[in-house]
């Protein structure tokens, strides 16, 4: 079953009367449980593609389906709700709400979903433990390192068991070792909890560890290869 389906997706940006084509006819299927990376030079359209899949941006034409929902005609409220329940986001940096502690940031998502306090706490503690932050749970973001902040962001993205986690260059602000650690952790969650991951990256190490590598150039998919090595 495909969890993401893009059909002939175009995206043009308009600035000062100039039309900038960011995506030019993207067709893409991602199945449940994949661990896929989007690669490509700067400006090739990786962020645009992730934003469109996450409903943060709308395509100029073409259809986008996430889960069983076609995004094109959804209202703002419905898209907001879809992001809340079906999609987890991890951005490059500054992902967290600064006035909330690590655990409150994770709990926040469950709270918006109306889950009761007891389940919220158990679930939040579980995922924070899974990302290795049981000691840092009660600290605010500014007392955490960049890598720890990214792990909280991942914990928040997976806490409500979404269909898919979208991550835009999650390791870009981290050093080699911390990046590798974060990636290994995401892969483990992917295997254990069957959460689908789609992330963009410039990092050769990340590309190497992904199970599928999709290459974008100038808004087109130029190659799409499955890695079979473990």
């Amino acid at each position: 079953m495909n969890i993401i389906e893009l059909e002939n997706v175009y995206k043009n940006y308009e600035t000062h009367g100039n039309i900038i084509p960011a995506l030019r006819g993207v067709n893409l299927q991602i199945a449940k449980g994949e661990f896929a990376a989007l690669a490509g030079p700067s400006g090739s359209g990786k962020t645009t593609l992730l934003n469109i899949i996450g409903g943060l941006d709308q395509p100029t034409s073409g259809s986008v389906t996430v889960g069983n929902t076609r995004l094109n005609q959804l209202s703002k409220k419905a898209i907001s709700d879809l992001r809340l329940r079906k999609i987890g986001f991890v951005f490059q940096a500054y992902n967290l709400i600064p006035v909330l502690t690590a655990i409150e940031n994770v709990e926040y998502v469950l709270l918006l979903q109306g889950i009761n306090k007891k389940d919220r706490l158990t679930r939040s503690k579980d995922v924070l433990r899974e990302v290795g932050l049981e000691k840092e749970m009660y600290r605010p973001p500014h007392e955490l390192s960049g890598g720890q902040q990214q792990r909280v962001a991942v914990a928040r993205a997976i806490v409500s068991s979404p269909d898919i986690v979208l991550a835009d260059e999650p390791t870009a602000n981290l050093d080699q070792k911390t990046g590798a650690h974060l990636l290994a952790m995401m892969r483990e969650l992917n295997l254990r909890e069957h959460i689908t991951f789609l992330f963009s990256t410039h990092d050769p190490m990340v590309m190497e560890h992904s199970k599928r590598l999709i290459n974008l150039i100038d808004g087109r998919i130029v190659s799409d290869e499955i890695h079979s090595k473990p």
Partner: protein
Amino acid sequence: MWASIKIFAMIGWRNLWRNKRRSLVVITSMALGIFAMLLSMGIMNGMNNQMVENTISTSLGHISIQRKGFQNDMKLQNSFVPSKELKNILSDIHDLKAFTPRIKMDGMIRSSEASRGVLIMGIDPVHEKTVSKILEYTLGEAAGSYLTDSEASDILISKTLADKLDLLVGDKVVLMFQNLQKEIVGTALTVKGLYQSPIDSFDKYVVYTGLQNLQKLTGMGTKISEISIRVTHRKQVDKVVEELRNSIHEPLFTILSWKEMAPNLFRAVTIFDTMMYIFFAIIFTTVVFSIANTLIMAIMERFHEIGVMKSIGTSPNRIGAMVLFEAMNLGIVGLVAGIGVSVLIIALLAYTGIDLSFYMESMRTLGTGHIIYPALKSKDIIASTFIVLTTTLLAALYPAVKAARIKPLEALHHI
């Protein structure tokens, strides 16, 4: 639902303290605004109160029993003989503290220097001091003394009038008036003492002499113009009036409360009250701008994180709610600080009084006396709470809508 209200209230609260200085400036200005508002209300209440109280205790009394028609036409014919039965009824009414007979009539006072139109009050010196404050207002020592004998040819005039007529204690004056037969009568009286009341116009106009003296001079016998009544507390007036009307069946009489005798005074007090609220609603709209401005700055600073909140699925309504909560937190803290400070300071001032003697002359014209004792009413605190919270909420409306409409993608780009 409840849990999400709680989290947004909490986020709002913590955001409030991120820029401590800015929030404190707003809170302080709100508290000061509230203090100014409550202090002025307190002073206004105090002044109204004292104005009414002074008018009542100089001459008006709480309640008056008169012959019908006297209120509009103060002539000697509109008088009556107070019966024993009437006095018994009055003595039996609970909450009725004291009563005294009076004659009120127009006349003229003349010294060797000048003459003036006056209101002549014939009083029973013993009972009068239990109803009005004229004894208290009488100046001591060299200024002579209060009337002692109802039959004596004595007169008590104000210091103001004495100065105008160039009179000293012990001097003789001539008092002229119409007697019951409508003949002009003149009589020589000795200035027994001087008084000064808090009401300037009263002092210029009112002179006192003994009731029996006046009854003899006018040929009224035992007739009087009114019985003036004091009750235990002003609040009891309406109740006592009601009781009197139920127990006095003489159709010739009319029973009037101070509100009915001085309708303009009563109306003025009510209008002052209402004006105060309108005035402060207007003042507080300026607070709206300061709060709105603070919130907009706060939102601009947090543009990115609002983007994050939205991109992980926080609905626009909830973002708006968060901003409203932040404003409410600001409003409530300002309110608590403002009311706390106000109650403390006003309680202190209510004890010490505010001396406005540098303003004395105009105060005397108002009839409040020169020391004002501010009084806070609970309805003022309730009203100010209402005004502050509604204006705060109004102020937050635009910033809340603005925050709710932030596009997540744009906000995310903004670091």
